[in-house]
């Protein structure tokens, strides 16, 4: 079955620290990859996406993610976090053979201390 794993459930860090969130997915053919963010009390918003091409993709708010096909990974990074990055982060995979159905990871709750 298709599955997406996010290794860290909770991350606590201080402002200006670097952030890396892991995401691995099970093999299922061609995929599109996404990171969504859910700020407290808000809806999910797209941070960045990968369809093809350069495996290092840049998103909004200084986030980037790297697709490593051989490792079935799509890790999210930000060099220097801010308090406003406190949120829940979800990795999601669209297995193209399954149509336009996103499979989500379990989410990582990030708390940035001022």
């Amino acid at each position, binding site marked *: 079955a298709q599955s997406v794993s996010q290794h860290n459930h909770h991350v606590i860090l201080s402002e200006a620290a670097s952030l890396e969130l892991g995401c691995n997915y099970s093999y299922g053919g061609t995929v*599109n990859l*996404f990171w*969504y963010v859910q700020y407290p009390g*808000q*809806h*999910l*918003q*797209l941070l960045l*996406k990968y*369809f093809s091409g350069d495996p290092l993709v840049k998103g909004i708010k200084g986030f980037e993610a790297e697709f490593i096909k051989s490792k079935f990974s799509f890790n999210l990074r930000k060099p220097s976090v801010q308090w406003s990055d406190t949120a*829940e982060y*979800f990795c999601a995979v*669209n297995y*193209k053979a399954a*149509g*336009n*159905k*996103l*499979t*989500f990871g*379990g*989410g990582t*709750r990030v708390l940035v201390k001022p």
Partner: protein
Amino acid sequence: DTAVSQTPKYLVTQMGNDKSIKCEQNLGHDTMYWYKQDSKKFLKIMFSYNNKELIINETVPNRFSPKSPDKAHLNLHINSLELGDSAVYFCASSQDWVNTGELFFGEGSRLTVL
């Protein structure tokens, strides 16, 4: 002007009742979805409609019945509510069924069953 809007945002009800959640998108998208986010923040797809036609029906009890009167609306009706139905229900839309996989989410409807 909200792209994907859901009503109500909060719903508290007794076990055994029937309730509905409504969703509307003004993005001109063809495809709409219902996702359930449980208490552990895990997001799972429930249904998807493409141009008013049901295309995804995951393993969801028959008590849940989606209805799409037109491609801009996808409502969710739940009969005989149970405690385990307590969750946040997210509506989402995408341009079409085949392509990008990028979903636009509503703000969620938090259902509490007492």
